[in-house]
């Protein structure tokens, strides 16, 4: 069974601060995605990374895939209240099985104005 552990589980910061959340596994993934979920809604895909060491930027969000493709980080610069939400990572396998994504337990981020 592939497990993805996210840390921290909860994070509360002031507007303007920087933060990093982590997604770690002992398994190698062919791809890794980050999603953001707001209360009462489904998760929304933010980014997919597929190459070890890959870095992608989405405005103030920077995503990195570990060299060994076992871990990833999400860094937010100058956080805003609109960044508040549950951040989920998910790892994809290339086995061809329809059951291909494993989701992490999530990081609940609260950005205070």
């Amino acid at each position, binding site marked *: 069974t592939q497990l993805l552990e*996210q840390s921290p589980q909860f994070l509360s910061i002031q507007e303007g601060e920087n933060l990093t959340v982590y997604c770690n596994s002992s398994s190698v993934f*062919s*791809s890794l*995605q980050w*999603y953001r979920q707001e209360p*009462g*809604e*489904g*998760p*929304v*895909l933010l980014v*997919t990374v*597929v190459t070890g060491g890959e870095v992608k930027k989405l405005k103030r969000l920077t995503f990195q895939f570990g060299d060994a493709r076992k871990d990833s980080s999400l860094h937010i610069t100058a956080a805003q209240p609109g960044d508040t939400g*549950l951040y*989920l990572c*998910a790892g*994809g396998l290339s086995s061809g099985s*329809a*059951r*291909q*994504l494993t*989701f*992490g*337990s*999530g990081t*609940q981020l609260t950005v205070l104005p």
Partner: protein
Amino acid sequence: SQTIHQWPATLVQPVGSPLSLECTVEGTSNPNLYWYRQAAGRGLQLLFYSVGIGQISSEVPQNLSASRPQDRQFILSSKKLLLSDSGFYLCARYSRTGSEAFFGQGTRLTVV
């Protein structure tokens, strides 16, 4: 565009009552479809997935069942709800490569 519809958005049901949650997908054919359950503020537990009409794979044995009567329709059911069935239920389809998931708006089920 490809859209996933789920209904109802919220549901309050008594213990022992039946359940039927429906998910329909627009804009794509023969999608792989998934039912997840999510506890408050936590990760997603995969319940069922389907690669085609009439094909259901169960990930967690429990009080629920799923059916896929049509290519773009995926239904989650129960004959008798338990208190522990309360949660946020999400329907999803995967991209063609299986590397990304796209979710519906979810159904908040409260069993009382």
